[in-house]
């Protein structure tokens, strides 16, 4: 058992920042490769004409999920040392909805807007400024929404713990669900392409 390396003090904070930069390069590279520097391509997800957002997101989740699962199963990685953001159900439901609104109105999410900015998208630069505007608004009203922000706490909890079923079973269920979603996405895209060809 020797991963996560950082948690086993294999290197210090200074080096972790270099790791952050390199991992960020990989993240940005693949986002751009997928076409996520384009707001139109991202928004097309919500009109069923190009389901790349779903395909990329779920293949990434499945890849990382299976990797984490197998690496901890063979004893290489201690899953309990991987950081979990604590769940606060109500604010995360409302936050998710607002984020979804922002996605289809603005055309990006924060990560994809960074990539779109660096490839010259002017709307993404304006969007990026908008995010700061939103953060300032949130900071300003924070004293008033603080109670809601900390409401419905569930702690650091995973789906297997919540449903009380084995981790491997849930991993399998997510894979099945993802494959089903991919098939539906391919079918939906073809159907929309036919519909648009008829117009």
């Amino acid at each position: 058992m020797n991963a996560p390396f950082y948690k086993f003090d294999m290197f210090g904070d200074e080096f972790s920042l270099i790791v952050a930069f390199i991992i960020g390069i990989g993240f940005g590279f693949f986002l751009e490769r997928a076409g996520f520097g384009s707001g139109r391509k991202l928004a097309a997800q919500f009109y069923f004409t190009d389901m790349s957002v779903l395909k990329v997101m779920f293949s990434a989740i499945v890849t990382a999920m299976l990797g984490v699962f197998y690496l901890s199963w063979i004893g290489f990685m201690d899953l309990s040392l991987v950081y979990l953001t604590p769940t606060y159900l109500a604010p995360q439901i409302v936050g998710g909805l607002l984020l979804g609104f922002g996605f289809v109105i603005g055309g990006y999410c924060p990560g994809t807007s960074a990539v779109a900015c660096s490839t010259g998208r002017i709307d993404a630069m304006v969007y990026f400024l908008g995010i700061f505007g939103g953060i300032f608004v949130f900071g300003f009203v924070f004293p008033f929404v603080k109670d809601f922000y900390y409401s419905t706490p569930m702690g650091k909890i995973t789906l297997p713990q919540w449903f009380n079923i084995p981790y491997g079973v849930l991993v399998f269920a997510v894979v099945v669900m993802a494959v089903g979603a991919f098939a539906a996405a391919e079918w939906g895209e073809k159907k929309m392409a036919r519909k648009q060809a008829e117009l």
Partner: protein
Amino acid sequence: MSVALDEINHEAEHTHMKPQPYWNPYLSGIGLGMVLLLSYVIMGRGLGASGAMTTTAAVAVNAVAPAYAQSNEFYSEYLGDGTKSPFKDWLVFEVIGVIVGGFLSGALAGRIKMSVEKGPRVSVKYRLIFAFAGGMLMGIGAKLARGCTSGQALTGGAVLNVGSWVFMIMVFAGAYALAYFLRRQWT
């Protein structure tokens, strides 16, 4: 301003090399997943984006109104205890990497182009107003949800975090719910 931007769009289409097609989405997704896995294995944490922007916002507020920033619980958390620069932060360095990585990929594929992403039916000005409004909603939502598509949906999704999955479902629900009303902007 909008006239000038339309000219930029027009010119870019003629002077730049033909951009290469995007990669297969499943292939890009697997690449993204491998980067995320690597982050778990090396660091014990996933990816993020909005956190770095919050650090920048907190530093900006602190520069203008230090007393207000330090008394505000939301900002003070991102400013730290003052023993080191708030910018010496994992997410800040990661997001600088995202910008560099995106530029590299775009440059290699001939996709660097000053342009505005929009459907043919709306003006540049209309699009930019919506971009700003969408960014604001995103900023508020990401702070309320304790993360965005990167830090919550992707990162928490892969380790089966309850809040992340609920959040992800709500993002899609919210976007699909409004899509009809915004069709002029995109289609």
